[in-house]
């Protein structure tokens, strides 16, 4: 048995190494092979984790939250197994463990930080039961792959109920996630943003999921919204309401990066995007809940540079380029907010693909609030649309009266804006374009030094 386990690990390492050499992402392949050779590989390796295993689930913010959590644990002197790249289905999870194992076939780690695709939880949990689950939010995403949110919620609930001792760290501001935590029967703590920060935006056309109480079906009443359906809600019929926030972000400031106070501790980060408050808060809540002091969290945040296309920064001559993933309406709306926080003149490239991993249905583009790009203070000098579905994206912008340039090849689009642009370029891409665009930007950045 030992031999098969070792073979599985060595084979996967070889595949991982070979793929790296030829510049391909071989993460999921390595996992698939390992599982094939030795089906108990994940069960055994995860069992070698000395302390706790965290999993991170939810539509948006998984990768950032998970990587932050990993960095925070490492700052506490812990050794961590983490699926950094965001490969979050069963094979990706297996890979993370296999590639972290030593050549002797052993895992030498205190903690596991594993993000899992919501629908894959039912496939991963039979291999190991986590101690904690962070549940970030539930938004519509890739309806052609996952179906309606109700289906995702049912799968998650099923998985959660197989792990009754797992504690859930849930975003209390999301009625869907919070209801799921309550309904699962697992113990939970909630994090969130207690008070209203933004003035109510009357003309907001944001899509809000779960307007109706998941418990009784009545319409939910909201005291306020932060964005999408996140906010302070209550059901007048059955009494379901936002749970008391065990970790409450207060005194928020967005004047210079993000700053807020939680439980008397002031957190400051040079990040953009209101949504990142949730990511920072979630990782903090998880660590604190697992008994860590986390006194150096601000330093962790300062050093945190995930290099994975989440607000990743590049510099090419005089042009600052920010690459960010935008793959569903809630995520894209938050991207737009983050771009609008920057008052400097700017160019934007939007790249939309419809490969299998993106979801082949791009109707969600019409659920994004692109009207907001029109605001004068946005100071957008140009928008270029790119990718397989650039024609659809161009049409989307036409129907909010925003002219744009069409350039299916993203490299050409980027180079053009570096040559003749404002020196402030945002590149917003969906999933399958992320890795490719990241590599192009790395290449161009390399040429310029």
């Amino acid at each position, binding site marked *: 048995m030992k031999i098969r386990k070792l073979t599985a690990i060595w084979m996967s390492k070889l595949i991982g190494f070979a793929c790296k050499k030829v510049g391909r992402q071989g993460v999921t392949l390595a996992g698939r092979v390992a599982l094939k050779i030795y089906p108990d590989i994940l069960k055994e390796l995860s069992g070698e984790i000395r302390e706790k295993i965290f999993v991170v689930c939810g539509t948006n913010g998984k990768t950032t939250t998970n990587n932050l959590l990993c960095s925070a644990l490492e700052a506490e002197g812990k050794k961590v197994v983490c699926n950094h790249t965001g490969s979050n289905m069963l094979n990706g999870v297996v890979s993370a463990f296999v590639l972290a194992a030593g050549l002797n076939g052993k895992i030498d780690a205190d903690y596991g930080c594993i993000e899992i695709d919501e629908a894959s939880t039912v496939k991963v949990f039979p291999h190991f039961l986590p101690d904690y689950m962070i549940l970030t939010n539930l938004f*519509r995403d890739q*309806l*052609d792959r996952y*179906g*309606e*949110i*109700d289906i995702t919620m049912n799968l998650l609930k099923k998985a959660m109920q197989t792990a009754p001792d797992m504690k859930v760290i849930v975003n209390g501001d999301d009625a869907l996630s919070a209801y799921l935590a309550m309904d699962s029967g697992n113990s939970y703590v909630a994090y969130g943003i207690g008070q209203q920060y933004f003035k109510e935006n009357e003309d907001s*056309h944001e*899509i809000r999921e779960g*307007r*109706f109480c998941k418990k009784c*079906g009545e*319409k939910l009443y909201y005291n306020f919204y932060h964005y999408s359906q996140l906010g302070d809600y209550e059901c007048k019929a059955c009494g379901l309401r936002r749970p008391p926030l065990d970790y409450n972000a207060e005194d928020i400031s967005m004047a210079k990066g993000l700053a807020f106070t939680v439980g008397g501790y002031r957190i400051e980060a040079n990040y953009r995007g209101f949504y990142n408050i949730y990511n920072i808060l979630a990782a903090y809540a998880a660590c604190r809940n697992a008994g860590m002091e986390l006194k150096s969290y601000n330093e962790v945040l300062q050093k945190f540079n995930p290099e994975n296309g989440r607000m990743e920064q590049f510099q090419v001559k005089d042009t600052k380029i920010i690459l960010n993933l935008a793959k569903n309406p809630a995520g894209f709306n938050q991207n737009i907010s983050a771009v609008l926080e920057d008052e400097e003149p700017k160019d934007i490239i939007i790249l939309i693909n419809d490969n299998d991993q993106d979801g*082949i*249905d*791009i*109707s*969600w*583009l*019409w*659920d994004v609030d692109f009207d907001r790009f029109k605001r004068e203070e946005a100071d957008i000098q140009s928008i270029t649309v790119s990718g397989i579905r650039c*024609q*659809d994206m*161009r*049409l*989307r912008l*036409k*129907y*909010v009266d925003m002219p744009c340039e069409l350039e299916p090849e993203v490299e050409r689009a980027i180079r053009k804006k570096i040559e003749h642009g404002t020196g402030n370029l945002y590149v917003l891409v969906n999933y399958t374009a992320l890795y490719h665009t990241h590599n192009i930007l790395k290449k161009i950045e390399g040429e310029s030094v």
Partner: protein
Amino acid sequence: MNITIGHLYPDLLNLYGDRGNIQCLRKRCEWRGIGAETKEFQIEDNIGFSELDIVLLGGGSDREQMLVCERLKEIKEEFKDYVEDNGVVIAVCGGYQLLGNYYQTKEGRIEGIGLVDLYTEQEEGRLIDNIILKSDLFDVPVVGFENHGGRTYINHNQPFGKVLYGSGNDGVSGYEGVVYKNVIGTYLHGPLLPKNPHVGDYLICKALERKYKRRIILEELDDVQEIEANCSIRKRFLKDK
């Protein structure tokens, strides 16, 4: 001239970019100097069909469709009068299913409002893909995306189009959607209208003709981008046709 578009229950039926259909109708009116007002109706609202020129019924999850179906039963008669009086309706996905007599799911039967004599039965496997139709109503093919578990049978009614690529109503007959008087029911979202400006204009034209009781010829618009988007889908999926 002006028209009023009624968007039925957007809180519940808003699954596949349906707002894009509304946005498209409004813009295409606006660009021609035709006034277009949208009225959104929530589940508890009374709908004054006599004030409406176009009704849009979108798609929702099964659970939300069930809530809508209860409500639609109460306004069935008024809705029927509107349809029989040549009122324009565009019903997409779940909305299309609700137009019919019933939707038989594994869990039970969702009663439709029977505005059009058709019915839907849930079967194993969802029909999910890009889809292209040739409709007798237009020269230019209609492109979109379908995602449905129900198979719809339209009896003797006229289909919206013949399937050139994709599955259509039931994945077998080779036809998609239904046309009854000025009602179009279809599984196509994407959303439907932006990439098919001819369909949007058809609806606007029918609505104006009904309201102003004369023949209307709409002013032509610059649809280069719309047609290019439509063509790109056809080129990609109809390689040898």
